[in-house]
């Protein structure tokens, strides 16, 4: 038979349980997926940091307005303007991340392109206890004295199996932050004050249409009030 696929580092640490062993089989490619396009690149809930679409030319008046929607930054990130100014794009955080959770923001992030971010639907932050990305950040835009909160997750109840007559507790089982997802009457409830927005719940949600939306933090500590539109 075909040899066992070589475990990647991401495979190595996938899941909260048992930090050993690789995914045994290659996965079907995303386009092959019937009934569930929700984990692919075009995940419906993947709101991570995209700028709004370019305004049409005829509506463009005056100097172009700089609108910044929040980017899903790794844990301990400083205020966004300081982050953009300070991040040297050295990729050290990406190199040390043991689960390949940190990626370079693609071109659609415009001025933020090339800076480190997390796409929880592809590979969430696993909330390492030693937080190697912060330790590796030489310019100090990821800092251990900052809150680890990256964002917050919401459950779209209409899509959640547990709210639709089926049984499912996967998000609460795999959540790496104790107490962030509670089960009440066998249904998950997210505590926004405890949730760090790591995105593990969104990554593991097995509902036909992913029932978790992860919002990056809109205003990280120290952000000036005019940093961007509020997301409520």
């Amino acid at each position, binding site marked *: *038979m075909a040899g066992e696929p070589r475990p990647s580092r991401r495979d190595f640490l996938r*899941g909260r*349980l048992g930090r050993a062993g690789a995914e045994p089989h290659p996965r*079907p490619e995303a386009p092959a*997926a019937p009934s*569930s*396009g929700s984990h692919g690149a075009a995940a419906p809930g993947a709101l991570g940091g995209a700028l709004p679409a370019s305004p049409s030319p005829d509506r463009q008046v005056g100097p172009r307005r700089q609108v910044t929607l929040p980017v899903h930054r790794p844990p301990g990130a400083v205020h966004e303007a300081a982050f953009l100014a300070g991040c040297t794009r050295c990729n050290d955080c990406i190199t040390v991340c043991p689960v390949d959770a940190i990626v370079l923001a693609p071109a659609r992030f415009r001025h933020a392109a090339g800076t480190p971010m997390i796409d929880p639907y592809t590979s969430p932050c696993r909330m390492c206890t030693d937080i190697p990305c912060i330790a590796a950040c030489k310019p100090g835009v990821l800092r251990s004295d900052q809150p680890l909160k990256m964002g917050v997750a919401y459950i779209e109840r209409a899509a959640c199996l547990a709210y*639709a007559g089926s049984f499912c507790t996967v998000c609460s089982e795999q959540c790496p932050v104790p107490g962030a997802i509670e089960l009440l009457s066998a249904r998950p409830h997210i505590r926004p004050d405890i949730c760090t927005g790591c995105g593990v719940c969104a990554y593991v949600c097995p509902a036909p249409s992913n029932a978790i939306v992860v919002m990056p933090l809109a205003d990280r500590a120290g952000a000036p009030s005019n940093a961007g539109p509020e997301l409520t």
Partner: protein
Amino acid sequence: MNAVIDRREFLKQTALATATAAAAGGAFSLPVLGGQEGASLKWNKAPCRFCGTGCHVMVGTENGRVVAIQGDQKADVNKGLLCVKGYHVGLALYGRDRLTTPMLRKDGRLVPISWDEAINTIAIRIAASPKTFALYGSGQWTVGEGFAGNKFMKAGLGSNQIDGNPRLCMSSAVTGFLSTFGVDEPPGVYDDLDACDVAIMWGNNMAEMHPVLFSRLVDRRSRGEKVTIIDFTTRRTRTSDLADHLLLFKPHGDLAIANGVAHLLIRNNSFDRAFVEKHCNFRQLGAKPDEKTPPDMLGVPMTFEEYARAVEPYTPEKVEELSGVPADKIRMLGEMFGRRDLKINSLWCMGMNQHTRGTAINCLVHGIHLLSGHFGKPGDAATSLTGQPSACGTVREVGTLCHLLPGGRLVANAEHRKEAEELWNVPEGRIAAKPGYHTIEMFKRFNTPTDQGGDITTLWVQVTNPSQTLPNLQRNFLEKKSLGDKFLIVSDVYPTATTELADLILPSAMWVEKNGMYGNSERRTQHWFKLVEPPGEARDDCWQLIAVSHKLLEMGVDGMKGRDGKWIFHTAEKSGREVPIWNWAHYYDVNVDERLFEEYRPFTTKKHKNLAPYQEYVKARGLRWPVVQQPDGSWRETRWRFSEFDDPFVAKGREFQFYHSVSKDDKALIWFRPHEFPPEMPDKDYPFWLCTGRVLEHWHSGSMTRRIPQLHRAVPRAYVEMNREDADRLGIRNSEVVTVKSRRGQIDLPVWIGGRGDPKSGEVFVPFFDETRLINLVTLDEYDPYSRQPDYKKCAVTIVRKG
């Protein structure tokens, strides 16, 4: 109501018009994603590929691919709801490593070969030694596949060396039904879930194993109905969370509990005297089986007084001592059974069947239902739930076990053989009288050198993964690696632990890549049509059997001809011209599945398991047998067997009639079976009980579900559930990898404390879906002497910290 509004809102937002049917009767369905409603998207019905519940799905196909799945609103079983596996069932077809070409092991390496060479290789092996060839099938075989396999072996080769994996999963339920009613399969149906006042889970984690049925039950609460759920279990599970009474018992304590209920019914004089006098006899075991006395399932009669004396010692206090369930809870249960105004539905699955006293506990649970008259009315039933989609429909009904013929007939019975030979149109004396080897024996003999009594030399495995699912794997299968003269043929859709051992691998078509029929837990026979082409050179399992049979015919093997000198699978058009169905290019020129089903139907009337014509199933979302034609020509299914109000075979005025009664007087048997201790119990060296089982997200050995990304991410690997007290005592942390070790083998697993299930102190639980961590290296292969079903739920292990 919120859920409904939310869903409608969601549908509007996502503009998916495919699942607009609103919830009816309290059922739910989630919207379908992935498919675009359009002219080229076609929807067809099919039963779900996974478990024995038998949910129906609507399969959306476009450009030759399955692109969407939706719960079938028209299906009685699930009313549009699916479990997490069901919503993703379409993905089971599209794992990247589907097997697409036959492969033969040459000099230790698997090399692609042609189908001609593959079929030829098998035929040569069989022709050289037909009596040492065995076929190991599956409860995932379609009805047609099982029938073809059974005919090929029993009416073709004249060999009974055919068994199926339901031996590991359902055979104690079979012996329970046979001992009690004289005929297999539940008298009740899923409708009992809608009508019962009390549902008792006998070691049954229904919320994870039959989630759609459990939803059907608990959903009644949201409609304001009262349903009391009693969860008898050895570990807290997801079912326990929704149960009114969680009654934790010691492993193997279930026998004492059932006897305790019988004791109370008699002591309180609350049993149903009229029902018992009119419809029941009492039985107990005869001589204890030993080398000279084979196990006798029929036992010896006993009087009511003798029965009452036999259950006399099972006082609530004694039962508490034996089972660990508090005496007052036993009294509560006894009182419930004593009430005529309550409707009680007992439900079980592997907890009672994978049990070295599986037949006994099955008989005892039927017994307390009969004794208390909780039988044969909507809501009053004792129903075993199956794990595989067609364990009932194929293996139990078509009889693909070493001792059975189709329709519940026995190879050991000369009259039954004669009837089968007539129906199959093969010469008298073709079918062998001696049963073949049951599963464990079959594999032991395949796993033993031929000159040391290993008289199975060629084994063909279809649609199952024994190298992961047999108990005590090393002793029962893995030795094969070093035995040069053994030949293993495996038909499967993905590389599995079993294909690793194979000498010849045949790529199979699966589910909607072929025509098929399944039969679920409630006697419901279901049908589907082929919707998409199988990948590469993958072909139907049924065709593989037929092609080998034809090759043997060409080689002049006598058994492949019937009385008329024609091939046993001879198939002709209406004009009389033969269709060469052994040639894949012509296999779908006719509907072979329909031909085989119509050939099978006459067998089903022999034991009142009547099936309707094939075309009736094409129209229906399954029909529950016996299906009997009405004066107006329509076909009517039966829900409650043996009850006059519903079963057409019960004589008028009889109220109940057990027309296959073991005692030949239309009465059912109430058995006394004593409490006994299991063969292996925890001791100083191996202080923990090990229980194995499934999880919601994965189905059996995981060969399909582990290739579905959503399911694999949800539960990526096996684990060992431990009680917190035990873990603290041993200094074990959550997620720490420990060694689970028994007298037979060991594996390393991460610990999960306070997880989805929570074993009692002194017990651990491990799921068996993970092929990279084979818990069956550790399990015990002791089995029930009557059903020959092994006990995967109880053996002694120790937990060792690493490093």
